[in-house]
């Protein structure tokens, strides 16, 4: 048995939260030119800032979630984390796609 299920559990929730952060930042940036300027000034391009920010956030959350709480997670908790990640990844991807469809059709 692969004992360190907590690594998988913490990675799943870190990926989930990172995905939600990507959705939030993406949508907020479309409505806040000032925020876009801040992101652009950080690294010379807003997409580079979002890319680096997302991967840093993921690893940071992974580290923190792996440190806090019980030493390990059981199979049920890990399985639930993976299914939750599955559902939220679909929802995050659909949110981004539908937002840009809506934005193009109704905002321009």
């Amino acid at each position, binding site marked *: 048995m692969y004992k360190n299920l907590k690594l998988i559990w913490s990675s799943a929730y870190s990926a989930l939260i990172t995905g939600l952060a990507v959705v939030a930042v993406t949508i907020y940036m479309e409505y806040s030119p000032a925020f876009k300027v801040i992101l652009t000034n950080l690294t010379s*391009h807003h997409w580079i800032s979002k890319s680096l920010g997302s991967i840093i956030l993921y690893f940071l959350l992974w580290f923190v979630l792996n440190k806090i709480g019980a030493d390990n997670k059981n199979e049920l908790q890990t399985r639930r984390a993976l299914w939750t990640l599955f559902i939220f990844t*679909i929802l995050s991807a659909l949110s981004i796609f539908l937002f840009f469809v809506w934005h193009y059709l109704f905002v321009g």
Partner: protein
Amino acid sequence: MEILLAKPVLIGLHLGMAILGIDAFLWLAGEYAAGAMVTRRRVIAAVLGVIGFIGSWIVGGYYYVKYYGPLVKPVIKAGLAPWAHAIAMEAKEHIFLLIVPVAITVLLAARGTEPSIRRPTMWLALLISVMGLAIGAMGFIISAAYRFGVIPAVAG
């Protein structure tokens, strides 16, 4: 180095690495579907997948920042299908950011032998492949919109 950084080579590498990622996660899903119990093969598939998507991210990102914004985007926006940028490119560049953290999670889960995590890991591997294919389709739309965007300029 000059050849490697040429625009067509960058696009080819971006696509090639993404195909490696898509195929590797399809392979991983197939290992689970077939009930294969060889952990080493699952880990190799997942490692190749993660390497593919990270490589595609870096190469595609370089192309996007260096060439797409100044050279391609203005042509698409002035062409027959400006929505290709407004919808396909915007969605593509942001949905891609979701993939690598999920892929790393699948890599970790692929190391596990617990029966109860096999099914969600298989579906996550399939989801990564489907997202990769959808992003590839958006890339095709963007390339086509650029090609048709330059036709009037050439003809004129």
